[in-house]
């Protein structure tokens, strides 16, 4: 085999795959068009564009820098690829007060605002696609999701429900400072020493804002609605 044949063969064998599975899908998905809502199927017109509120760009940067994606996934797989949808609070909520069963698969519009979808490497911890939704339940108990998250990030095992959690503590996201006047409303319920308090630093605030924006169970248009047809009369 001559060098020329070799290079040709190599380019062909690699090039075809490179084009087919890397380059072409990359450029096609770059220009993903939003889904047009259909009057008949969806009840309204317009486009489907799941809104996300929160500091997504900053927060996802902190998420990436601190390696959260190594242990947490953000992918609710369809039932042919896994059992994620059967869990009561991963794809949404199984019994939401207003909407009933809101669970759904992750779709291509769920990561808007992020440069790189943190699908995740392993699941040492739970999937976070709907963390914001799960934490909303704290409102009913009179607690604040932000406070819960700050406390969890500072030391996951401080919460007795999570005494076995292997989530690493992130005290470096917080700032210890002197209490000037009144204690800050953000201050963590941690003993920081006489006259000191622990407050979230800017990275912690961005990260918590991002985590609370993780609510991926909005109503989807008919083309993305894979729920089985309801039985008549129920």
């Amino acid at each position, binding site marked *: 085999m001559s060098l020329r044949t070799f290079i040709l063969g*190599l380019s062909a064998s690699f090039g075809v795959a*490179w084009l087919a*599975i890397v380059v072409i899908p990359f450029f096609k998905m770059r220009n993903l068009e939003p889904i047009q809502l259909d009057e008949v199927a969806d009840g309204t017109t317009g486009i489907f564009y799941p809104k996300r509120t929160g500091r997504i760009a900053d927060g996802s940067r902190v998420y990436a820098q601190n*390696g959260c*994606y190594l*242990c947490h996934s953000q992918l609710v797989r369809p039932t042919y690829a896994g059992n994620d949808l059967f869990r009561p609070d991963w794809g949404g909520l199984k019994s939401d007060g207003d909407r009933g069963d809101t669970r759904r698969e992750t779709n291509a519009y*769920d990561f*808007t605002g992020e440069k*790189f*979808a943190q699908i995740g490497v392993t699941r040492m911890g739970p999937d976070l696609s709907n963390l914001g939704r799960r934490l909303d339940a704290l409102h009913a108990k009179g607690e604040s999701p932000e406070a819960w998250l700050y406390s969890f990030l500072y030391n996951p095992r401080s919460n007795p429900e999570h005494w076995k959690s292997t989530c690493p503590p992130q005290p470096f996201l917080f700032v210890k400072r002197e209490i000037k006047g009144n204690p800050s409303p953000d201050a963590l319920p941690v003993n920081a020493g006489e006259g000191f308090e622990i407050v979230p630093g800017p990275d912690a605030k961005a990260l918590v804002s991002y985590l609370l924006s993780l609510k991926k169970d909005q109503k989807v248009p008919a083309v993305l609605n894979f729920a089985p047809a309801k039985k008549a009369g129920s």
Partner: protein
Amino acid sequence: MSSATTSSSEQDALLRAGIDRSLRHPVMFFLTSGAAWLAVSILLGIIASAKVHSPGLLSSCAWLTYGRVFPAHLNALVYGWGMQAAFAVIIWLMARLSRKECTMTGTILTAGHLWNLGVSLGVIGILSGNGTGIPWMEFPTFAWPVLLISYIAILIGSFIQFRVRPEGHVYISQWYLLAAMIWFPWIFITANTLLHCIPGHPVMGAAISAWFRSAIIFLFFMPVAIGAAYYLAPKVTGRPIFSYSLAKLGFWSLAIIAPWAGMQKLTGAPIPYFLPYLGAAATALIFVPAATAAYNTIRTMLSAEETLAVSPSLRFTVAGITGLVVLAAAAVFLNLPGSTLPLTQFSLSGYGFEILAIYGFFSLVMFGTAYFIVPRVTRREWLSSRLIKIHFLFSVYGIITVALITLFGGLQQGIGQEDWKQPWAAAASRAYPYAVANTVAWILILFSNLFFLLHLALMWIGLGRRSSHPTLLQSAHASSPHGAEGDIDNAGPATTH
């Protein structure tokens, strides 16, 4: 000087010795700095693994938080050790097989230092909290152009040597190494450009990252290691390759199959539906080139069992090729979309598979090649067969543990994850024993590689044995006319016995 064995002619030996001499500094630089990075990487890996089962360990240090120390470990392993070991082996093998001395030593050494600088700054970048969050590409974005330029400067010489090689048969190792030299920049530039330079869809970015990880293993580390094994097996045993046509078939099957693999890590994600299935099928099909290469090299080595028993190079190579067989079987077993893929997709299996590939296969073959090359470039023999044995044994103990974690632990963890009726804590706690096993495995491997680094450093500064006989794992030369240790002194051949 005539000899009764079938060794090559003097002129040829001096030519080869000249090639070795010209490569002494580049090869030793890459091997020693690579081994140092390996030790650093394993240390980081131990810290990371310890934090999985004991999260409170060193938790106040931001630089050592799991989310930073684990990517630092992996990137140091891949770019610090893996690539530099590959550089050493590629430049030496290509020079020898093209029968050309290296004339670009200065360029290569400068580029090597630049590579090390890039990796160091990258690792510091990750640990200081400036990683990119893209698996295996966590170095801050300034690093990849630096690494790319160094890569080109290091390997351009080998490519030129191949172009000006003497007429004649091109050996299979040269094809494998040449292919690896071309594939890496193609893959590296693609992934880095599409993920850092051109804005794209976030989920497709994740898919390309998954493709990158797979491609680096199957299209760089695998061909370099297979190429090295195809060189060592016949060279050390003196027997021909078992079936040369099978070797060529293996090469082309790897070239055709491997570029499609990788996206099975994103099964169920909102990317074009067929991509993960092509990835899973291609990963399973890696069995074919892997099995053919393994079969060929092992049959070749087994045809000279006495040599296999005593040669350090062959022992490491055979262990590495066994790792390849295990890797090939794992590639099939762990990636079946209906059954095992949903279990292993987000479990320890992924990491275990990668470590099996990089350490259990690639690194063991690289060690074997290093044990062959270093005496030739330093003109000294290895100091102690005991050090070699420790290196071998503890590496093997460690990697067997990792293999078990991959195959059993990952599946156990996956089964727990998929059991949706149980609360999450039940699934999470299944990982605990395997995390502990992982820490133990890395400790064993660190132990072995500290000895390797020591041995290598001593060889580099010229403290090896002056001898005409290689350091073997059993003393096979006790009855040699040159004495048990060979001619140790420098005074010329003995005139009286």
